[in-house]
């Protein structure tokens, strides 16, 4: 348990270093990574399906990133990119590719759809957090209702 928390922090913080995040902000990225990883691995225990767990975890990571970015006056990307990285479906993408290499196309398609769904869920979670923080600044709506 503690080992996992420490390793999750180290993994996210080293990702922040890979993306050249300023040194004073690296530890915040690590903490956001812990939050997103824990909500991603804890929610399925409560009976939530993995895709929804990924969406919620991405939402939590993006929400925290937007909040802290607004508070510290830095671009939100500095926190959002390392925070979302633990959710990247690397394992599923790998098993997709392994199945295709072994010519097990049916299994590969199944895993591939899981991968795409998880990636879409991460995007959905991020978009949800973004739309909370951009209320009253909407773009590209369908009708011009502001004309009288």
């Amino acid at each position, binding site marked *: 348990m503690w*080992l*996992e928390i420490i*390793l*999750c922090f*180290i*993994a996210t913080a*080293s*990702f922040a*270093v*890979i*993306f*050249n*995040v*300023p*040194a004073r*902000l690296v530890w915040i990225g690590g903490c956001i990574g812990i939050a997103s*990883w824990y909500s991603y691995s804890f929610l399925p225990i409560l009976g939530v399906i993995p895709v929804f767990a990924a969406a919620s975890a991405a939402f939590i990571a993006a929400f925290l990133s937007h909040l802290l970015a607004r508070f510290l*006056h*830095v*671009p939100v*990307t*500095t926190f*959002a*990119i*390392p925070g*979302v*990285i*633990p959710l*990247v479906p*690397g*394992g599923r*993408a*790998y*098993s*997709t*590719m*392994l199945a*295709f*290499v072994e010519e097990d196309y049916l299994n590969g398609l199944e895993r591939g759809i899981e991968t795409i769904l998880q*990636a879409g869920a991460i*995007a959905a979670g*991020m*978009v949800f957090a*973004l*739309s909370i923080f*951009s209320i009253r600044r909407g*773009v*590209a709506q369908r009708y011009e209702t502001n004309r009288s």
Partner: protein
Amino acid sequence: MGKTEKAIEVCLFAGKLMIKYGAETYRVEDTMQRMGEAAGMKNVHTFVTTTGIFFSCQTEQEEDLMQMIRVDQRFQDLNKVTEVNQVSREFVWGDVSLVDAKKRLIEISEAPMNYPIWFIYLASGVAGAAFSYLMGGSVVDMGPAFIGGLITILSLVFLQRYIQGKFFSEFLAAFLGGVTALLLVHIGIGTNIDQVIIGSMIPLVPGIPITNSVRDLMSGDLVAGVSRGAEAAITSLSIAAGVALALSLFLT
């Protein structure tokens, strides 16, 4: 050169730096717009894509000006994005003059990365090791995943000096990392080949294109969002192809 031309030059330079080091499109457009208005231009319009920036405005004498700048290279350096953001903020508030802002932008563009390159290699190895534990939960595989991640990022940085195609060097780096992981497990260091390979590939994940593509598409910058999404998709596919080649050479 008139005052407005100088201001346009600074705006375009700030925008080029931001897009080059991995900022979102809406942030670049917003920054350039605010800087232009702070410098006294009227009717400011910006159009930013992943590979080029257009900027048009009207001077105080109602003369229309339009410039574009091309962005050839893109790196991942969020520290520089943060610094340019800070400069533009101070310029808009009026704390920094146009000349000083230009000087500071030139300093930012000429500065080295804020971490030495060996530290980034080390971080890639550590990230690989930590992720292989998170994915599978065995401590034994952390050592080979560290070496695999290190080899992957070393070969990526080495190959990018000699190969023009970004995707081909990613493909070769993934192949070399995969071969390293397979060899290490074959000679008995590490037990679970899947975890070691996932850990080795982690430094190649296109984090900035994926996140920015979602962000751009949602804020209505469709051209930039689609092009970044294509970049992310091709990078992921070239990583997958590199690992697939390594696996099919060694597993059969």
